[in-house]
């Protein structure tokens, strides 16, 4: 009985000690989630969240202006660094998947077009509002903030009258590509999403939709970047 108390005391003590040294990022992430679900349009309460949204919405705009997957690196990186500074610098390494970390990782993924493959796979030229055709986005590295790369991701989308009817990702080398994409493909291709909605998505909304596919955060961010690149090629 006494030893049981020792065990409990030891457990609570060490748990409390660790949590007080590095508080969990649970709450911090939830602010991001709220803003993410509301999308970029909705007014966000947290300054950090709107900052993140601004950083990410800047990317497709820059990409759209140039047909190929040009790198909007400078803009995004500066945003990332300012955000990093707001958070305690120590945590950027350990808390990679938490809110602070995700923003960092996003910028990494979006800013590094891995193998700049601007293969213009557009079979049908963009005509008017109702764009149709098959477009392949540039390849992006699914990179963790710690430098680990889960292969580079490229997405081919099929548009019909301005709507995504199918979306197929490929990853090379495919570490766990098929697994991740079985959740991502239907998500981007489902009819419930219009192009505007896809474009208006924020980093956190991508993550919140796909995070329960554990550990594919980086793949999904690269996937999303490639989708935007494909849309840019379609001239949308």
């Amino acid at each position, binding site marked *: 009985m006494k030893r049981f108390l020792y065990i409990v005391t030891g457990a609570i003590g060490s748990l409390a000690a660790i949590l007080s040294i590095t508080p969990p990022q649970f709450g911090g992430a939830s602010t991001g989630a709220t803003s993410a679900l509301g999308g970029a349009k909705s007014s966000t309460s947290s300054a950090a969240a709107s900052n993140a949204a601004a950083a990410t919405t800047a990317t497709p705009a820059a990409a759209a202006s140039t047909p190929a997957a040009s790198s909007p690196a400078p803009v995004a990186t500066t945003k990332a660094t300012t955000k990093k500074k707001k958070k305690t610098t120590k945590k950027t390494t350990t808390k990679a998947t938490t809110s602070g970390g995700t923003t960092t990782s996003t910028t990494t993924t979006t800013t590094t077009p891995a193998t700049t493959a601007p293969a213009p796979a557009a079979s049908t030229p963009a005509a008017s509002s109702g764009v149709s055709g098959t477009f392949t986005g540039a390849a992006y590295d699914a990179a963790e903030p710690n430098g680990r790369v889960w292969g580079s991701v490229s997405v081919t989308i099929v548009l019909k009258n301005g709507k995504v009817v199918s979306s197929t990702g490929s990853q090379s080398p495919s570490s766990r590509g*098929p697994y991740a994409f079985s959740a991502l493909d239907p998500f981007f291709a489902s009819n419930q999403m219009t192009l505007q909605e896809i474009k208006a998505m924020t980093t956190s909304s991508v993550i919140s939709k796909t995070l329960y596919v554990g550990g594919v955060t980086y793949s999904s961010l690269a996937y999303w970047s490639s989708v935007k690149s494909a849309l840019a090629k379609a001239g949308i």
Partner: protein
Amino acid sequence: MAIGKRYQADTASIVLGVGLGITAAIYLESTTAYDWSTFYGKVLEISRICALLGSYLALVGLVLVSRIHWIEKSVGHDRLVIWHRKLGPYSLYLITAHVFFVLVGYAATERVKLGVELWRLITNYPWMLPATLGFVFFAAAGITSYKKARAKMSYETWWTIHLYTYLAVALSFMHQVLTGPMFLGHPLNKLYWQLLYIAAAIIIITWRFAIPTIRSLRHNLRVEAVVKEGPGVYSIIMKGRNLDALGAQGGQFFSWRFMAPRQWWISHPYSLSAAPTNDYIRVTVKSLGDHSDEVRDLKPGTRVFFEGPYGTFVADKATKGHVVLIGGGVGITPLRALLEEFDATKEIDIIFRASTEEDLVLRKELDHIADGRGARVHYLVGSRKEHPMSARYISKFVPAFRDSDVYVCGPSPLVDAVRDAAHEAGIPKNRFHDEAFEFHNV
């Protein structure tokens, strides 16, 4: 001395608790509100908690029976085995829950059937096939340890299956650090987890393998003779070098490994059947399992590897001036060894239960020692009905029963009956000492 011993076990408990706390902390450090935002997200998060706790408890379970001598000395091997047995099922439940929830969580997320999801998990995640195998081994060890299953198989079969637990734990490690969200991108969490496994591996290799091997070689124990004592009962006399250094006492047991063909791979727990000397050690064995004939056929000169001594079934646990030793069948052997250990001031009664006269093994020795020191031996031969081991019945032979220390060794029903009798007679727990055969078997 006693305080020092207790202090060591307390330290071990605190270390165990701290580990549990850190394990919980690495989860809390890595989880976010996103993870908990959807129903199946919650399912997956619960599965991860189950996985962390289950793995931690599995490691603790292995370490508990890794024969760390200062923990063994302070807690007692039997008690550690009991904890190991209590903990084991929980770690299996938790890991089973992890497998189930992961499967359900991902299958629901991806909207596929469970079978399809199982295939995807195994084929698309790194190290998932070894982890799945590990789970199968782990579950097999758990199921075969379940009382009803355990009773249906030989000690050797059970033991071999149980041995695979080490492999199971090792196989599951890589999928944890390569796919676990609490480790990906969390280098400190990963470091802790790696250190945890390395520490467990070092403990097991040191205490379970290296130290017993070195000691066995140093004492150079070899079979001297095998003597028949009764139907199916044999004494193995072993000769070694400087055996006093082992500090073994009558009443304790060792885990023995006879280095003969077909036997070297498995060890057996046998109690000493005589107080050890500096040169000789004796055990007396009833052939119960598949092992039977092999004991009889042991050749003199066969090298013996051993682990031990184990057990707190020893003379200095007695607090009263009167001692009652109750043995059933071959369970008399540790009591026979104990009998030599009590000092002359103790008054001793021995109750020897057996179903037939033939089963009264070591009878001559018992009588001889009893005569020499004035102890009484009561031979109760017959069925359980003839000799109900109740407080009243025992008191018929030993009037001072309620005012004595009780030592009992034998089959579980006898031990249970005597425990009830002792309770009935108002004998406190610290004066009741038991050694049920089954507790040796880890």
